[in-house]
């Protein structure tokens, strides 16, 4: 009933909004927020393509489940790193964590 194109457009727009968040935020956690939107957009895309096909091959749905798991794992490790950096430097602004820069 609902045109397939609408799902893809919503996913594309969400991906670009997430990209905007990643490019614009100063805080590391803000960048992680944008990253989560991008992962969600990719998820919607996978599920929409899988659903529009025959749904006999489960690879679309399986990939989506693995994306859920990997996103959770990545957020956990990323936030652990951010908290660790905050403990030693008292800042999470990515522009100030620039020791490796010349």
């Amino acid at each position, binding site marked *: *009933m*609902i*045109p*397939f*194109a*609408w*799902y893809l*457009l*919503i996913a*594309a727009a*969400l*991906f*670009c*909004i*997430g*990209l*905007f*968040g990643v*490019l*614009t*935020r*100063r*805080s590391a*956690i*803000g960048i*992680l*927020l944008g990253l*989560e*939107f991008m992962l*969600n957009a990719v998820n*919607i895309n996978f*599920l*929409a393509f899988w*659903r*529009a096909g025959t*749904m006999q091959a*489960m*690879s679309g*749905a*399986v990939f*989506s*489940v*693995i994306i*859920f*798991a*990997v*996103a*959770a*794992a*990545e*957020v*956990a*490790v990323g*936030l*652990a790193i951010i*908290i*660790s950096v*905050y*403990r030693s430097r*008292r800042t999470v602004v990515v522009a100030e964590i620039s020791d490796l820069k010349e």
Partner: protein
Amino acid sequence: MPLNLLYAVFIFNAIVILGSAICSVTARNLIHAALWMVLSFFSIAILFVFMGIGFFAVIQITIYIGAIAVLILFAIMLTRRSMQEQEDKRLKNVWVALLAVGGVLTVLVMTLRQIPIFGESISTTQVDEMVPALGKALTEPAQYGLLFELASVLLLAALIGAIYLAFDRKKAEGEEK
């Protein structure tokens, strides 16, 4: 359900997804940004219900809102110097980012229109028989069983890594002394 009503509710849902995403990436206060993100995740779960895969809607709420959003909120609360947080964006940065994002969106939409099945429709009836088939696909060795095991190893590594990284060694040594 008549088609116009269905379209109207779907478009409202899409507006909530994109609107709360925009509010999330432009909010000054990080906690407000995280809560707008929670609203966006919830609307994406409703989008999955529209697609007919209610199982993924519930998984989305459990994992994204129940685990990831809670983690992010905990991290925001633990890494702030005061209860108020200001987020300053430099104006030049915003125009460059908007330009880049606009370019990416244009390329994406132009590519998507080339797909042959772009014009089709997805029915909104729930696909209940998908859940046992997904379970079989994830656990049978012939299909994706190895991928499932690898994902669990990845989660174990993330668990151990997060605990080790966030462990406050100085406080623990201070208590021992």
